[in-house]
């Protein structure tokens, strides 16, 4: 019978079908960070359990870490959480990339960089953006802390088999339109719960032509569409990325050749059935800007702030509440909306390609005086690479603060936060109320759109702007 990419990987990892209709699923890689793991390690201590597969478990610290001066974490509670991770990793024998490591970074940025993420694997982390790794043809999804403890102790999870959803992007993207716009467009169409219960599989011409970095952006935000996992079938672009020389955990030489042979069998068979499908013409996607407090509240940059009652999937009341929080009036062109802060970074858009694209916009230009501009690489490896290419000089020349790696203002668990009513253009993934700081107003955009907003002080249609 024809199988989808997801079905092939799922079936290969079922240890046992259980009597309650769930499956015991084997987990090949477990990533751990400081925020969602302390209670899980404590649970192991209380029950006298061990980490079952230390060699499949990797930890780093990213959410709490300062991005300016890394020598000290001033917030004592943040510091205690980071120290707890160090102690837990030492006690339980887990590899840790801490603030002294040149491999530290956002957990979803370093997994692929280090070759921990590989096609065909199952992968989990106590973090909803684990869906990022699906870009490699990996079944990767976020879990809660109880499940983190479960995986640490058993290397398995009890899971109900999700349904499958084919998301096909036909045609070619317009210049300056990004994978970020592709995923925001999808979320606008299906809503933030449209993918709940499904694994999304992205396919089509526009997906095939994306780099691995851009594919990761798409898969990263699957969760904003409600799907725990999003996947892209591996191809030569995937294998080239995995075979780069600085990926210590990826197979090498003959082992790599053998792996590629297997990975080529992973793409879905012709005629494989999906439970749901959607087709989007990529050539018609305009740069996207969110206007509300949910990633599904998104529209084309050429549009205006919508009227309550005119937005599919959201009640008039939902929209009114969102616009009140955002301080926006229906009918205002999005290009008239000014921003105070621009944040370029996060597990969505903090990779080297994102920084290259943003830097190209900043070349020879300066940010508007009214704008605070923060550029935060996703990992220390990205930071070094960017500095080797001179991108840091471009950013600093434009008036940006160039930082060390971490989650930073995506969720503001560290000191990088918006103040009440401050408005940001952000390359991150969530525009929820208070996400970047209590009372802060977030607009999600692509790296180029964020860079142009920093220069002009308001949103612009990057397609027109770059031509002009």
């Amino acid at each position, binding site marked *: 019978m024809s199988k989808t990419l997801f079905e092939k990987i799922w079936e290969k*990892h079922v240890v046992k079908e259980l009597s309650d209709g769930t499956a015991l699923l084997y987990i090949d890689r477990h990533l751990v960070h400081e925020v969602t793991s302390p209670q899980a390690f404590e649970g192991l201590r209380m029950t006298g359990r061990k980490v079952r597969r230390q060699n499949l478990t990797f930890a780093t610290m990213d959410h709490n870490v300062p991005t300016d001066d890394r020598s000290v974490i001033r917030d004592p509670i943040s510091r205690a959480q980071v120290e707890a991770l160090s102690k837990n990793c030492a006690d339980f024998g887990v590899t840790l990339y801490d603030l002294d490591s040149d491999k530290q970074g956002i957990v979803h940025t370093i997994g692929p960089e280090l070759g921990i993420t590989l096609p065909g694997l199952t992968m989990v982390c106590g973090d909803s953006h684990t869906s990022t790794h699906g870009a490699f043809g990996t079944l990767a999804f976020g879990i*809660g802390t109880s499940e983190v403890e479960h995986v640490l102790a058993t290397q398995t999870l009890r899971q109900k088999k999700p349904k499958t959803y084919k998301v096909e992007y036909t045609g070619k993207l317009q210049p300056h339109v990004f994978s970020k716009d592709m995923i925001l467009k999808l979320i606008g169409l299906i809503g933030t719960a449209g993918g709940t219960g499904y694994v999304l599989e992205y396919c089509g011409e526009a997906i095939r032509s994306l780099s691995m970095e851009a594919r990761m952006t798409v898969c990263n935000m699957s969760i904003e569409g409600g799907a725990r996992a999003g996947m892209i079938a591996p191809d030569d672009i995937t294998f080239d990325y995995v075979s780069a020389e600085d990926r210590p955990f990826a197979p090498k030489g003959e082992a790599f050749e053998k792996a590629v042979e297997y990975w080529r069998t992973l793409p879905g068979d012709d005629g494989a059935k999906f439970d749901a499908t959607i087709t989007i013409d990529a050539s018609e996607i305009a740069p996207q800007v969110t206007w509300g407090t949910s990633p599904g509240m998104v529209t084309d940059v050429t549009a205006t702030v919508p009227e309550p009652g005119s937005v599919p999937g959201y009640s008039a009341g939902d929209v009114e509440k969102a616009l009140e929080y955002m301080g926006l009036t229906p009918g205002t062109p999005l290009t008239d909306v000014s921003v105070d802060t621009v944040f370029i970074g996060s597990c969505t858009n903090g990779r080297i390609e994102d920084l290259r694209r943003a830097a190209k916009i900043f070349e020879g230009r300066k940010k508007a005086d009214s704008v605070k501009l923060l550029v935060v690489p996703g990992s220390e490896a990205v930071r070094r690479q960017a500095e080797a290419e001179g991108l840091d000089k471009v950013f600093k020349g434009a008036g940006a603060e160039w930082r060390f790696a971490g989650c930073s203002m995506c969720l503001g668990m560290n000191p990088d936060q918006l103040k009440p009513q401050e408005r940001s253009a952000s390359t991150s993934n969530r525009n929820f*109320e208070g996400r970047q700081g209590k009372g802060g107003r977030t607009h999600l955009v692509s790296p180029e759109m964020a860079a142009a907003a920093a220069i002009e002080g308001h949103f612009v249609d990057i397609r027109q702007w770059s031509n002009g």
Partner: protein
Amino acid sequence: MDRFETYTGVVGTLDRANVDTDQIIPKQFLKSIKRTGFGESLFFDWRYNEVGKPDQDFELNAPAFAGASVLVTRNNFGCGSSREHAVWAIAQYGFRTVIAPWAQRGDVRVPAFADIFRNNCVKNGVLTIELSSAEVDEIFSAVNASPGLKATVNLEAQTIALESGKSFSFEVDPGVKETLLKGLDDIAQTLEHESDISAFEATHNTQLG
């Protein structure tokens, strides 16, 4: 985990859709390394005003909802971040049941709860009940008509009965039902399959997946 036994409690309402886990428990409370102490921070940004006092405009602060243990809300509750702290906050506040409606969007039936949140609830003995929009509207109306209304949640029979007389039945996964009713320890249950896991590991290549 405690067994989920039939109980009667006050129904509190939260009339918002797409409530995300950042709202259920904001980031500053995720720095704790403990599993307790989250109840006071539930819905923190909505629940307290600038000077840290309960905001009287926030629905759940209504005196009639004091001690509420059944939460009724709208579609896509618990979306966003995987933080289990959200469920710890809900449970430690005193809610043992959360009710929300599924929604129809085109051909797709959109579930009432986000996936990771719903799984996290099971691990903490919190029951999520999915009803139709019409049924949830009925519960909202009944509570609005008589704030402080109580309901009896019977997982064994899969019913929720309002003290005003109306009763609703709900679906639940058999495995979830058994786990909640028996208060089972998930990891201990899985470790009963230890020999299966070891046998699987003996042949499974974790480099190839």
